[in-house]
């Protein structure tokens, strides 16, 4: 492996200083002169027809300057991709509690709240659909849009993977398991709530600052629903206080609301959500009902897998068709099978709405299959790691989708690393033999594969621009957002590496649609690989120009040049400074501004036949959790945790470790604490006092290792890390609990009741917290 100056070295994050000083300005930190505060009137019922909506009384409230409804937008503000089923403000119907119906701009937050309270609204309640197992019943309440193809309107999509004949193979299997698992909705719980600020421009356009993931999607929606010329709409992404997949749709329509209000009032308008409003209105990780049949032979060979899952998309499609697709590709786990049949159906309901969340369908699917694999190992009397090692995907294998894995497959190494590091064999034996008692220990494993980037979801490319300014600083852009994971630092490292300059010279801008170039959505952990390759290409293009100037200055050919630090050295050992070369380049009339684009390798997937090459590469990982369970009170403490990730080359180690630690923490929350429970469409936990996320005491010390299998298409051999870090955590913890208490918990979260009683206590839901939360500051 070649040695790098910056790649893989200990590097300080480019945006850490302003964040530790507290000077980083998030959307909510903007207070502009004359700025108005906006607030949305939100539905307090899960499903209803809008019978009367008169917003004029709001305008009578002192301080209220404007109020808008769907009628203030082109085509009622209809948007959405891949299904155009959402509205910037509700049109004719509301489909979930928290859906925005109208929005008010006022001089103070108090006046805005009074304004929404003054709006005259009459809703005619419609029957709600809350049980996804009955979403496709002929008489189920219709939540999804009308459709002409004869399919049930609540049916959203079905994503299959097919290999061979599962029934035939299952018949030949010695052991067949039939298992059901469920996962609940999960709240992203970014500590910064949603927010957007719109500033009207003298030309009749808007500049919008919005805490979101994908600037060009925001801009595209704004120009569409506002009917503005693209040149009149500019989206700028300030620092984003966490996202995890959660700052897409809701933030786009929030920015459309403030933009319309800014255009109407001629004033800057900001809307920032209270925590209650954030939790009630925002989309969640979809809840899933999962059914797995697994067949194996006595000698421990896995042979067949059938996975039939249903994902709850809630009121709108949002990203669920893609989530379900990603879930389907990973539903059988990282194993070889003779036959495989996966079908993931997504349906509409009135349980909030679901969208992207770290892991994007694989988090749900992996939870089910990795417990099922453990259950099969138990049934066969095999050690869970031995069983996985015997059946897992290796270099050269064909996946159940029909893809040959030709490079960068590090799952075996990951499993071996966590086995050794955790002292697995000793602990597994010891805990299996522990005497009966109230405090019990267990150790569990989970394996992962996770397709990199978008896969067959869409065109996968990114572009970066790079330019040398008069003061010799280098300005770099990307169309992708760094909402915390550290991609701006990764890009700075890459540009510095390619140009041979100090990182301090490089200014990596945040996305701004007027300066950056559309690079698709910031999702799917694609920033390092796709965005990083674009940066590398841009920097290489610039380096070519600079090298030309250096060779001219040093009177030699480009290949006679070498570098000492930033300096260029010619054949006669003459040294010239970087700045001198840049100046010379300018004198030569060379253009010191360029760009680089990278397009991911082609993939192909047959969405109906369920076969093909869904992703051009996979991330592999193995996690081991060691737990202690107090069976009297049901409390599980994760004592120790090991994670090994094959993420390809690691470019920014502190960042990569941070992704693993943070991902594992979210996975532990998903495993033990978190449940965004909807009761008759009403979210039951609307703030952190009842929706518990892991604290520093809930997360153990995590030992992370990277297996750096080189991936030829990635920058310096890198793949990805952000999402895969979370995905295997919940099944690893649940497998450890099963080992500790000798009983399986197949429904997340494994909270106190489920550990003690084996089931959730049935509590009566209440609409009260939602109703209060939507009407208080």
């Amino acid at each position, binding site marked *: 492996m070649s040695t790098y100056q910056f790649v893989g070295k200990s590097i300080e994050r480019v945006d850490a200083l302003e964040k530790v*000083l*507290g000077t980083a300005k998030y959307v909510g930190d903007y207070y502009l002169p004359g700025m108005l505060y906006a607030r949305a009137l939100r539905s307090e019922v899960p499903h209803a027809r809008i019978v009367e909506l008169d917003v004029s009384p709001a305008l009578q409230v002192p301080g209220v300057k404007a109020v808008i409804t769907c009628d203030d937008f082109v085509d009622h503000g209809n948007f959405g991709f891949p299904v155009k089923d959402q509205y910037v403000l509700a049109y004719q119907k509301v489909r979930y509690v928290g859906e925005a119906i109208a929005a008010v701009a006022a001089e103070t937050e108090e006046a805005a709240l009074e304004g929404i309270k003054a709006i005259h609204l009459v809703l005619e309640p419609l029957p709600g659909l809350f049980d996804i197992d009955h979403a496709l019943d002929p008489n189920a309440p219709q939540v999804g849009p009308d459709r002409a193809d004869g399919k049930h309107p609540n049916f959203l999509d079905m994503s299959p993977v097919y290999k061979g004949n599962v029934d035939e193979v299952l018949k030949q299997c010695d052991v067949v398991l039939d298992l059901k698992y469920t996962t609940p909705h999960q709240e992203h719980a970014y500590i910064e709530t949603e927010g957007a600020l719109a500033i009207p421009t003298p030309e009749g356009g808007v500049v919008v600052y919005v805490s979101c993931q994908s600037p060009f999607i925001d801009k595209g929606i704004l120009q569409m629903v506002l009917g503005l010329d693209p040149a009149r709409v500019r989206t700028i992404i300030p620092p984003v206080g966490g996202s995890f997949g959660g700052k897409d749709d809701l933030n786009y329509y929030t920015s459309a609301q403030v933009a319309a209000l800014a255009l109407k009032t001629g004033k800057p308008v900001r809307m920032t959500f209270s*925590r209650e409003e954030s939790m009630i209105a925002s989309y969640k990780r979809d809840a899933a009902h999962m059914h797995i049949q697994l067949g194996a032979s006595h000698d421990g060979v896995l042979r067949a897998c059938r996975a039939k899952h249903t994902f709850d998309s809630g009121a709108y499609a949002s990203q669920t068709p893609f989530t379900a697709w990603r879930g389907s590709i990973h539903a059988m786990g990282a194993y070889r099978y003779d036959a495989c049949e996966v079908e993931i159906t997504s349906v509409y309901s009135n349980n909030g709405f679901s969208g992207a969340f770290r892991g994007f369908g694989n988090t749900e699917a992996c939870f089910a299959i990795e417990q099922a694999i453990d259950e099969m190992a138990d049934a066969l009397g095999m050690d869970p790691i031995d069983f996985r090692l015997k059946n897992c995907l290796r270099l050269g294998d064909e996946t159940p989708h029909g893809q040959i894995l030709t490079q960068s497959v590090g799952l075996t190494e990951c499993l071996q690393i966590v086995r050794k590091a955790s002292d697995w064999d000793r602990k597994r034996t010891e805990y299996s033999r522990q005497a009966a008692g109230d405090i019990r220990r267990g150790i569990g494993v989970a394996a992962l594969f996770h397709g990199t980037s978008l896969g067959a979801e869409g065109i996968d490319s990114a572009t970066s621009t790079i330019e040398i300014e008069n003061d010799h600083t280098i300005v770099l852009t990307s169309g992708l957002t760094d909402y915390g994971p550290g991609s701006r630092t990764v890009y700075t490292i890459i540009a510095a590496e390619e140009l041979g300059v100090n990182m301090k010279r490089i200014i990596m801008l945040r996305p701004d649609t007027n300066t950056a170039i559309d690079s698709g959505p910031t999702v799917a952990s694609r920033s390092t690989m796709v965005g990083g390759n674009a940066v590398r290409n841009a920097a290489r293009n610039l380096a070519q120009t600079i090298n030309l100037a250096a060779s001219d200055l040093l009177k030699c050919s480009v290949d006679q040049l070498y570098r000492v630090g930033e300096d260029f050295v010619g054949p006669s050992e003459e040294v010239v400074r970087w700045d001198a070369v840049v100046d010379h380049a300018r004198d030569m009339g060379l253009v010191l501004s360029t760009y680089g684009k990278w397009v991911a390798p082609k993939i192909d997937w047959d969405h109906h036949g369920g076969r093909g090459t869904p992703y051009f590469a996979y991330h592999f990982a193995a996690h081991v959790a060691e737990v202690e369970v107090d069976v009297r009170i049901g409390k599980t403490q994760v004592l120790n945790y090991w994670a090994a990730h094959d993420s390809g080359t690691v470019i920014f180690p502190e960042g990569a470790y*941070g992704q693993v630690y943070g991902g594992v923490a979210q996975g532990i929350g998903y495993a033990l604490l978190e449940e965004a429970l909807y009761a008759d469409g009403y979210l039951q936990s609307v703030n952190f006092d009842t929706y518990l996320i892991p604290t520093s005491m809930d997360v153990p010390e995590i030992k992370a290792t990277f297996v750096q299998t080189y991936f030829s298409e990635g920058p310096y051999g890198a793949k990805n890390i952000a999402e895969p870090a979370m995905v295997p955590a919940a099944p690893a913890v649940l497998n450890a609990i099963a080992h500790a208490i000798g009983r399986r918990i197949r429904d997340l979260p494994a909270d106190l009741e489920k550990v003690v009683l084996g089931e959730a206590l049935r509590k009566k839901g209440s609409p009260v917290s939602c109703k209060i939360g939507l009407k208080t500051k």
Partner: protein
Amino acid sequence: MKINFTLNHQPVSIDVPAGITLLRMLRDYLGVTGPKEGCGVGECGACSVLLDGLLVDSCLVLAPQVEGREVVTIEGIRAPDGGPNDLQKNFIKYGAVQCGICIPGMVLAGEALLARTLHPSREEIRDALTGNLCRCTGYQQIVDAIEATALERSRLQEQQKV
């Protein structure tokens, strides 16, 4: 009503509505935006400040309660040269920062702990952070940064004794 207090070592006198919180007074009336509102109910610690040296959630403190007292926000945590202090530098060095929204609170929680002891175990550091939620980092590198600072400060203290 008029409130007089010390903010980041400077005397402040300001007229605000009586019912507002310290957090609201800092952000909306004084333009001090380092403290963030993450929950408004005392659960997340994003609004943390030091009140007479103790870590408090400023969303739970009413503005009049700080009359005559000393408030330090993240804006008041600096090295003498105005740059990051040793703890803030270690947050950077140990990769403790991701999205950053919790970090002002985390730095203050770290300072509050280090004011009590320069020999905390990792367990004690974790315990001192329980009122501050971070959704990004999994806390580990934050603990690393505080642990390293404790060690550096205690060494410094010993050198000064000698």
